[in-house]
């Protein structure tokens, strides 16, 4: 991989630090009028999710991390691994629950997700911003109550629990914002 000097550090750049793939969050240039320049850099460790703040001498460099974001179709879960396919090359990848993380709440077969690969293996999975999922369990729908009013929990086909309006029933399909976990609207089938 290429090396990146501190003055090339941009937000989102993926670099190796202490043997861990990291994403740069912020790079502050600190330079006295007379004297050595420094860069105070905040990075997210992509393995642990922890944020590091590290000070560099300006001009030092880090090795780029072989981290790429790729669109992939979610295929299925075999009980241990989640399987994805690159729709271009048809190459298949398996991700464990650690890599999939909270995205597991939103993975529907054939949906296209962003899979972040590190050295060719899935490091993390980002679901589409909006997904359409079926309600598999909720209290019975209250007819006529379509406007304002209360909410109730609904269990979706993926196992996620979302607060939905009272009028919805089992079997209906709803659209959810995966970034907030919030109900958007009912999807007419």
């Amino acid at each position, binding site marked *: 991989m290429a090396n990146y000097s501190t*003055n090339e550090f941009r937000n989102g750049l993926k670099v190796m*630090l202490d043997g861990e793939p990291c994403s740069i969050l912020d*790079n*502050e*240039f*600190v*330079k*006295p*009028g*007379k*004297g*050595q*320049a*420094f860069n*105070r850099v905040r990075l997210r460790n992509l393995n642990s999710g922890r944020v*590091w*703040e*590290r*000070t*560099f*001498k*300006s*001009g*030092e460099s880090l090795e780029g991390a072989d981290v790429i974001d790729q669109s992939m179709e979610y295929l299925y879960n075999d009980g241990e691994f989640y399987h994805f396919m690159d729709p271009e090359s048809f190459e298949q990848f398996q991700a464990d629950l650690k890599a999939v993380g909270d995205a597991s709440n939103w993975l529907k077969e054939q949906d296209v997700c962003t899979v972040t690969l590190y050295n060719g293996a899935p490091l993390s999975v980002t679901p589409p911003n909006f997904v359409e999922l079926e309600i598999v369990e909720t209290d019975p729908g209250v007819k006529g109550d379509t406007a304002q009013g209360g909410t109730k929990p609904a269990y979706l086909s993926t196992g996620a629990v979302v607060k939905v309006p009272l009028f919805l029933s089992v079997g209906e399909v709803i659209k959810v914002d995966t970034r907030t976990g919030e109900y958007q609207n009912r999807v007419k089938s």
Partner: protein
Amino acid sequence: MSDWRPTADFSALSRRAQLLAAVRALFAERGVLEVDTPLLATAPVTDPNIEAITTVSPDGDALMYLQTSPEFAMKRLLAAGSGSIYQICKAFRRGERGRRHNPEFTMLEWYRIGLSLQELMDEVAVIVALAVGPVESHYYSYQQVFERHCGLSPHHASLSELKACARAHLDLHFDTDDRDVWLQLLMSSVIEPLLDRESLSFVYDFPASQAALANTRSNADGIQLASRFEAFYAGMELANGYDELRDANELVRRIRDDHARRAENNQILPPIDRHLLKAMATLPECVGVAMGFDRLAMLACDVERIDEVIAFPLERA
């Protein structure tokens, strides 16, 4: 995309223009002459921590440099008998980009004959007051700020004590045996943020190893000190002032030191300014200070980013 638009709004640009006018009026009142020296220079400063932007001469035969500070040319004017002078000009420094830095920036630099370093600090306070209103000044020696905020003496602490102190405050990705790098790191990353934000702090009596082009002297304990100061306000370095070195032989020695450090780091070795060397013989006793004008404008506008007080920073130039 609206990349063609200025990053500063017009209220900020208008405040900046007022501040320029106020600075000029103040110097006119004090009998300091405004001058204008070349931005395109044959010899840049040799300071290893400052990289000039290079270009070619108009005939295409030689390298030339966008000046990193008007210091050398202004000293030639002083040596030629100008009396006290000031300049507001663009200066250029390669690689310096950040919240408070743009590689092309505006410098306010002035030299005073017959003023002491203390009187120059007073004048800096008057200029800062043009931007922020009446402001209290505090004076600390370099030793005092290190003792107070780092619990060590910058002149006596061992290299390993300096490293331990820096590592206690910061997660570092480098190591070096250069004492000054550790002192500069502690100054800029530990001490500077702890200086009172509401008053002007002057730090003076730097270690002689950081003299740049200031005179040096021994104090009562036999420690070599540089007669220079830095001014800080609102957690930000604003100005660097010097009792100016006038000894041509000492100047050559310091330039050689700079070149040696540059060679170690595989940096370019810029030519020596022969005009300046010749002028040193008649350079009068004087004090001089360089102030980042954009930072002064940031204070006047009460903003945190240099982009908010300049129309077109690097990415929109």
